[in-house]
């Protein structure tokens, strides 16, 4: 969901359709005379409608489904407590199947009815809809962490982007795994937004810590990474950063173990999936893989994740838990905070909602993420990252290693965007 880069053709078609979309929406602002609250698209006297443009049927279908469940769990909780601004919050879920053209037309269809989007899954889709979201001012939670997302004033990024995540991760390797100045650091990364964002982070951290960076680019279709691991081994890389998909992570861990190449592996959020624990790479992953992430793992004992863990089996008993449900829950929580603030300001129009969003300096998600500060466009909402270790004995397969922290190395870092 976070990884594929939009094909040129797709983007071109999307861009063309955007012209049409751009003309279709004229915000209709009205003042609700009874309560004195200004309202606009997606807000009626008794309902606030939010959209979720997600993937329920395509490559990222299972993740999309569980993120929607997370959204729904939180909105149910809010509605049970009386809603926001005396209004129920309703969710309109649309399935784009990670197809950019479909996503663009679904956006055009839903945009006039919703206030904003509590979920938009997939880098190619957020890229294609970027200018449209800015023009229509539909505040949107981007379910991805590319540093380019920070530039859009209407985009909510849940935590820090891949580059900061990677800087914090490399610093962790230096502090906890004994990586020192002069050592070689391997980095296997996908082409596109995700990999490049992470590479900026590892390049910066390697420079700061005096490491020699050995980067190798791979594609989502590369599944046997023997050649790449052999090369890093012969270069004497003391640790390897993985900004790839789950399947590549498993191949690297398995091949490294078979070559007797026993080094710490560090993965970004999208590089791990609990289903890897049923592959032959399981023991290698448990031994060496840490995952850096902005979202607390399902097994976290903080208040927020416990709340999710209690609510999920009640409402969705068949769901195999993973940290994406926490992401969905936290996204809805942040959106609800924005709406509460806008309500207090007496302005539930899109402009009012954006203004309220930028007034939020310290959103507490109860340990689902670290505290989030949305007060400025272009700035990381948080610079703290969780370190998690693979552990097949806990639900979701990842165990928290401590509170989210910002490393010293990351302090001077700013995203190039």
């Amino acid at each position, binding site marked *: 969901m976070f990884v594929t880069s939009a094909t040129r053709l797709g983007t071109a078609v999307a861009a063309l359709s955007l012209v049409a979309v751009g003309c279709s929406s004229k915000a209709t602002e009205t003042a609700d005379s009874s309560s004195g609250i200004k309202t606009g698209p997606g807000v009626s006297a008794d309902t606030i409608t939010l959209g979720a443009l997600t993937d329920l049927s395509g*490559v990222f279908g299972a993740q999309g489904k569980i993120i929607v469940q997370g959204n729904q769990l939180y909105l149910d909780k809010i509605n049970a407590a009386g809603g926001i601004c005396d209004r129920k919050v309703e969710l309109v879920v649309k399935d784009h199947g990670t197809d950019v053209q479909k996503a663009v037309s679904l956006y055009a269809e839903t945009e006039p009815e919703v206030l904003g989007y509590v979920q938009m899954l997939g880098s190619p889709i957020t890229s294609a809809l970027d200018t449209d979201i800015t023009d229509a001012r539909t505040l949107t939670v981007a379910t991805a962490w590319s540093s380019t997302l920070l530039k859009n004033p209407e985009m909510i990024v849940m935590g820090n982007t891949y580059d900061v995540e990677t800087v914090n991760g490399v610093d962790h390797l230096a502090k906890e795994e004994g990586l020192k100045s002069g050592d070689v650091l391997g980095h296997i990364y996908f082409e596109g937004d995700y990999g490049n964002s992470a590479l900026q982070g590892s390049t910066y951290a390697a420079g700061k810590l005096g490491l020699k960076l050995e980067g190798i680019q791979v594609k989502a279709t590369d599944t046997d990474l023997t050649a790449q691991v*052999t090369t890093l081994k012969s270069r004497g890389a003391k640790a390897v950063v993985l900004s790839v998909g789950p399947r590549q992570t498993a191949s690297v861990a398995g091949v490294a173990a078979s070559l007797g190449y026993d080094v710490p592996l560090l993965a970004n959020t999208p590089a791990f999936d609990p289903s890897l624990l049923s592959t*032959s790479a399981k023991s*290698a992953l448990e031994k060496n893989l840490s995952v850096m992430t902005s979202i607390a793992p399902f097994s976290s004992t903080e208040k927020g994740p416990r709340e999710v863990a209690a609510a999920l089996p009640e409402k969705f008993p068949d769901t195999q838990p993973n940290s994406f449900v926490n992401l969905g829950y936290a996204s809805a929580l942040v959106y609800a905070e924005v709406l509460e603030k806008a309500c207090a300001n007496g302005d539930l129009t899109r402009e009012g909602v954006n203004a309220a969003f930028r007034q939020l300096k310290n959103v507490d998600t109860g340990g689902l993420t670290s505290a989030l500060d949305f007060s400025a466009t272009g700035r990381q909402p948080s610079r703290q990252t969780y370190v998690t270790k693979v552990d097949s004995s806990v639900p979701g397969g990842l165990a928290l290693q401590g509170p989210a922290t910002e490393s010293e190395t990351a302090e001077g870092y700013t995203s190039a965007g």
Partner: protein
Amino acid sequence: MTRLLELLAVGLSLGMLYALIAMGFVIIYKGTRVVNFAQGSLLALGAYAVARIAPSAGFWAAAAAGIVITVAGALLIRFLLARARGHDHMALAIATIGVDVVLTTELTRRIGPDVLSMLDPWGAATVRLGGVTVPQARIAAMAVAVVVLGLLLALFRYTGWGVAMRAASADAEAASLMGIRLGRVATVSWMIGGALAAGAGVFMSTFPSAGLDSHSSTIALAAIPAIILGGLDSTHGAIVGGVTVGMAKALTAGYGSELGFLGAGFGDVMPYVLMVAVLMWRPSGLFGTREFIRV
């Protein structure tokens, strides 16, 4: 030196798998004159069936079932195309792209974000041969590839079906007039093509790969430079082309940083560079039949 040997071992084992995939393309092409672009989704279908059946029935029964299911899939395509008889081969090849899209979409939906394990008996075990570590799954893959490819070459040379296929491939009309049943040749070709796809799919999803995922059907595309390079209608060409592509990919990826001036990720481009170079020298591929046009 060890690194070179290790990369050569990776290249050879990968190359043998490409040879299996390429052989599937070539046999279907020889029997029917259709390039089957649905070979990739057949490959994923076979591996998917094995992954789903193996937990209850064990790997070997699942592998057998996977082959049967993929052969049935290939036959289904063959009869779909037969309904469109009279069209030229280019139209039929494009129809297989349609089949590929449908099958891949359904498999993608079923696989979702999961990485499905084959539950094969080799797991992540390896052996050391002369200082080089080779996964047992890859040794098994090479052994299977050598036996299967050897059998197929013998079939072409020594059996009536082999002669019929070569005749049909050389001149369908004349072969038909000589009493060769083209329909039967086509059916057997599709069956063999399907079985080869299933076998390659299983071994492409065993260690060092993590398993089958929703991207797996694109693996077959990597074999396309192999068949063009070797010659679209040559079984020997498929083997040579497959091994060449495997070696080229492994060596370019392994020495990627020394070849940094070519740009990152050049391993994926290298097979196509080789393909173009060979086509400039021999327009029908290394072993392909040259076309003569008499005026």
